[in-house]
């Protein structure tokens, strides 16, 4: 399917969670409005608990209880893939089945699965069940599951959290490689500043409390720059004011 052709507009005027079990009603997001350019890699960052995941859920259409509108314009109902904070695999289905299940029945893309599994280094785990492989491997299955759809719009919610550095770094490189195969628009949530600079073409920083956008910056690094630790650090310092 064709990539997105026009910016998608995200507007969340107000999102609050109702009072439940002694907890008061609280406002999570307010006055959020931004456009996402086709083919851009937008990282949303901010303190933990500031509503990043809530925002992704709204954009994914999982949470419809908010004031505002998510508008994909002429692209209507694009193919969305979502890599969650936990892998969210079906433990009773094999690695291969977990990837294959997101495709509609009889879809020709099923032929791409072996190659994709090889790409994420899981060829020999295709018949394994998710609970029998490591968390890093499970995250790679979740990546394969997202990419087999050839998504036009990819949502990712701290997909590499709680992994050791080398594993996370390898997965980031894998993500960049997979994204470069076809134009993909990505919305990526993380609180890892180095990670955001390495991946983003644009960074949105959310403020603390009832979050709104505090900062919206472009990251003008080339692909080569992103693998240079010094350049990433310098850029991180420019954006976040730390080292």
């Amino acid at each position, binding site marked *: 399917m064709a990539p997105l052709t026009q910016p998608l507009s995200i507007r969340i005027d107000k999102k609050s969670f109702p009072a439940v079990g002694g907890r008061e009603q609280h406002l999570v997001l307010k006055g959020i409005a931004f456009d996402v350019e086709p083919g851009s890699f937008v990282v949303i960052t901010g303190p933990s608990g500031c509503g990043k995941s809530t925002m992704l859920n709204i954009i994914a259409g999982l949470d419809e209880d908010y004031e505002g509108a998510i508008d994909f314009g002429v692209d209507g109902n694009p193919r969305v893939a979502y890599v969650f904070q*936990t892998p*969210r695999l*079906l433990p*009773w289905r094999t690695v291969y089945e977990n990837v294959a299940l997101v495709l509609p029945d009889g879809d020709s893309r099923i032929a791409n699965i072996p190659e994709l599994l090889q790409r994420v280094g899981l060829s020999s785990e295709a018949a394994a069940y*998710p609970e029998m492989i490591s968390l890093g491997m499970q995250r790679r299955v979740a990546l394969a599951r997202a990419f087999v*759809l050839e998504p036009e719009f990819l949502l990712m919610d701290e997909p590499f959290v709680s992994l050791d550095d080398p594993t996370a770094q390898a997965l980031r490189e894998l993500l960049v490689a997979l994204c470069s195969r076809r134009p993909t628009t990505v919305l990526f949530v993380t609180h890892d500043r180095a990670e955001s600079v390495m991946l983003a073409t644009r960074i949105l920083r959310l403020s603390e409390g009832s979050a709104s956008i505090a900062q919206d910056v472009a990251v003008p690094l080339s692909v080569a720059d992103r693998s240079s630790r010094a350049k990433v650090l310098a850029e991180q310092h420019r954006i976040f004011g730390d080292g």
Partner: protein
Amino acid sequence: MLKAVSAPTQQRFKLGRVGWSLISLLALVALWEIAALIARSRYLPGPWAVVEVMIREAEAGELWTNIAATLIRVAFSFVIAMFIGSAIGLALGKFKGADLFFDSWLIFFLNLPALVIIVLCYIWFGLTEVAAITAVAVNKIPNVAVTMREGARNLSKDLEEMACVYRFGRWKTLRHVTLPQLAPFFAASARSGLALVWKIVLVVEAFGRSNGVGHQLNIAFQLFDVPMILAYALAFVIVVQIIEMAIVQPLLARANIWRR
């Protein structure tokens, strides 16, 4: 020194599960034989006397027709109870309002003695097969409903969202996301359910049926024919055990293959 000691222990001959079961069963039979020898009473026959009665009954065909009659009742009431009980349980687990309203009904039926249900079914519907199967099923339905309700409450929101984002649709979600989560609850209620149904079917038969193991036990009771009672009990236990090992356990093992 320590290493030298620990090495041979790994080579030690290991008695498998089957071996242990066999030994423990033999011990039970031996204990029974000893008790019979001490008691020397016609109300406590030894194992061999019981086996003789069993063989006699089997040769006459009585044993098989009665066990078959009981098994058919078990099968019908079990399937009906699992089906209706699951439907009620899932509905209660999914709809909070229904749960609030029907919870006290469920508690009422859970605590209603089996005997009351059996007697009332026979009075209301006559001494018929339908009444018998209904009585057993009604006894079992509340247990299934409670277990399945727990299953429905425990459905993962995470996986449901995943299925939603990836557009699984109704059927795919049911088959690959919802049912596998309910399977352990279904298995638990099926297992405890089968155990309960076995027992209640016999009571129902003793009360108002003219065949089946329960009916046969009732007659033997009136004659104080203990060898007959034990012969049927033993035959019944063996059949139940065979069903458990040949059908229930392989199914459970297959369903749990993905577990660590």
